[in-house]
């Protein structure tokens, strides 16, 4: 049976991990490649790198990072951040990225999703959506949740799917950072509307939160950052707990 996926997310800037990491003795906790390798050894199913490099000049370090990860890590990975056009995506594909994740660039110009899917196949295109609950509805937010749009989140996700998204990475900005659990009600509602994989993000604080999101929302994957980086949850322990609850994991 297809296994539910556990995905650590790493923020990188200028080729280095941004947030501190202390889940294991690393020679260099700021080296995303070493960290990625360690996660792959622990049983992570996939990795997401979110590139927050601000300047265009520094993008070269990101390309080198992608190549290093592809060389050394034997599980799939996604890279997001700074991808605005077909050419950006093609460079990452040729550097060995398995998937790219697009957020605001797709909101600004939805045709980009069609173009990417046609050029590289929909399996390459992850649409990341940041959502926040505002006055009776969930709306798409940009710039890490700071900027509200008037776009209804559900409608946007269905449109992204229809345009050629291969997967949706949905982050609840209301839950992100709270460690109070994923937004399972909304995730479930979205999951029932789409026919492509859904990754839950935002709110992971303990093992039970992962059990809950797989059982309640039936998402295909769950993503988290700090609980993994700070060693609050070890992936082998998480996998064992999920398995004991009857959830299929690798």
């Amino acid at each position, binding site marked *: 049976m*297809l296994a539910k996926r556990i995905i650590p997310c790493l923020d990188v800037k200028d080729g280095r991990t941004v947030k501190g990491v202390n889940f294991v003795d690393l020679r260099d906790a700021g080296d995303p490649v070493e960290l990625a390798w360690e996660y792959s050894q622990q049983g992570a199913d996939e990795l997401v790198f979110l590139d927050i490099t601000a300047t265009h000049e520094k993008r070269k370090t990101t390309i080198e990072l992608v190549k290093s990860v592809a060389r050394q890590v034997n599980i799939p990975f996604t890279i997001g951040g700074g991808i605005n056009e077909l050419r950006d995506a093609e460079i990452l594909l040729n550097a*060995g990225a398995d998937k790219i994740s697009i957020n605001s660039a797709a909101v600004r110009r939805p045709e980009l999703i069609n173009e990417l899917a046609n050029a590289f196949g929909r399996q390459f295109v992850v649409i990341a959506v940041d959502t926040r609950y505002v006055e009776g509805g969930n709306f798409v937010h940009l710039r890490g949740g700071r900027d509200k749009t008037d776009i209804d989140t559900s409608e946007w996700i269905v449109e992204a799917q229809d345009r050629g998204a291969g997967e949706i990475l949905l982050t609840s900005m209301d839950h992100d950072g709270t460690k109070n659990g994923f937004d399972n009600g909304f995730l479930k509602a979205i999951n029932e509307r789409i026919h492509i994989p859904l990754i839950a993000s935002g709110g992971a604080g303990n093992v039970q939160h992962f059990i809950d999101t797989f059982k309640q929302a039936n998402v295909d994957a769950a993503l988290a950052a700090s609980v993994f980086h700070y060693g609050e949850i070890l992936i082998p322990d998480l996998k064992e707990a999920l398995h004991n609850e009857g959830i299929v994991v690798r």
Partner: protein
Amino acid sequence: MIGIVNYGAGNIFSLTAALDRVGLLYGMINEAQDFQKYDHIIIPGVGHAGAAMQKLKESGLVEHIVALKKPVLGICVGMQLLTAYSEEGNADLLNLIPLNTLHFDKRMEEKVPHMGWNSISPNGNSALFHHIPDGSYVYFVHSYFIESDPVFSAAHCQYGIDFSAAIQRDNFFGVQFHPEKSGKVGEQLLLNFAKL
């Protein structure tokens, strides 16, 4: 040494990286005379099967591939090219293995693409799956599948329906999953192939 058919269907960086990790030597096959340099051949491929077949035809390598007696491994779309026909692009393919490549849609209720780690059941006698136990997890990403077959399936997988995770006929082998992304199991498969 392994020769990789370089016909322009998708990037091969991940594949060469995996071969580097397990210490297998490789080179590129760009034209017909390159085949003689290698004793094992890999046909990679991602994306659209019909488009990939078109590119393979344009490369001028088709007649040389079908005549090969060396071990040949098709990966993902490269595997699908070994079959007779794909619904993707309504395309006639190499027909080295008499099976069809079909779309998941309308044949089952699960999400498409089939994306992630799924467990496979190798047929006991396939050397490609030496040291790979029943129930091993490998990484899949695909929307089209090759039908399950009692003769030509070398490994099975379940995703709404039973389909071929791997196929085999004589010296031609194909895997639907990505050994280059399938952890230690995938690396074992690449090593097995190199020993055939």
